[in-house]
């Protein structure tokens, strides 16, 4: 059945950020899409080995990065993610 995909978030003009200087301590928010069978397993192994990575990287596990669609990346940007990392 056809349905309208309504924008889950709407950005009112008042909340749009004005361009500003980047503070020295600023870190980009990075979203990582990782394949369950390789990249996510590698991240898991890194955890087991007690290796650390910056906290501004968030991981989303996918059954396969072949599942990743353009819209997932675009939605991430729409919601304020600064960079998307796809590993698989």
């Amino acid at each position, binding site marked *: *059945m*056809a*349905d*309208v*995909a*309504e*924008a889950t978030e*709407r*950005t*009112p*003009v008042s909340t*749009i950020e004005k361009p500003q200087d980047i503070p020295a301590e600023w870190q980009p928010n990075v979203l990582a899409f990782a394949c369950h069978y390789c990249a996510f397993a590698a991240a898991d192994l890194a955890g087991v080995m007690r290796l650390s990575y910056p906290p501004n990287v968030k991981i989303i596990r996918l059954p396969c990065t072949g599942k990743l*669609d*353009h*819209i997932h990346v*675009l*939605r991430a*940007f*729409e919601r304020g993610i600064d960079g998307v990392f796809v590993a698989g």
Partner: protein
Amino acid sequence: MIVGQQKPFDEIWSMVRDFKKVLVYGCNTCVAICHAGGGKEAEILASMLRMKAAQEGVDMQVDSAAIERHCEPEFFEPLDEKVRTYDLVLSPACGVGVNFLADRLAGAIPVYPGINTSFYGGVPEAGFFVELCGGCGNCILHLTGGICPIVRCSKSLMNGPCGGTNNGKCEVSDQTDCAWYLIVERMKKLGTLEKLLEVQPPRDWSTGTHGGPRRVSLEHIRAYEEKEEKNAATEGK
């Protein structure tokens, strides 16, 4: 299938920027195959418009939807009411779909095109589309080995190649095969080369695109539908 290409984003933005509530309404048939205006492309375009609106400081709601076909009424019905709540429908369907929906909405809200409809074509390989039919209304493919000289020959010649044929390529571009070279080679393989000796008279173009919209009416089907409607009305009484 009908092949189209999405319009440049800046052109789309200039069309939609003055509207507050926009629906990007994709079609999941031909334009989905050519990655121009299916549900996926509608979603992507809607997302890009939302981000552009945010960047430009424009308060705008952009949603997306898609139905299987934009050229038949049944497919529109489930979303009819919802569609009418928007200020603008941006349709990345082919020109047929844009016309069809605009007629259906009858001036209630505008329908703008999101793609440039290019041609009737085939998909010889993924991501590559080529024009193979001009829709001239008077098919002669049986005379030319299944290769259309109307649309594949740059001059639409009917009786062999012009002087510009060059080692199997057209003088217009070395990327374009000479249709008549292809026809001769095909007819040789088919063993029907002698058919080309028959001179084709000047073509009757009255079936072409220059006499207003063309129509095809299947009377037996229309009569059957009318009968069904009458029966339903009688039973309803």
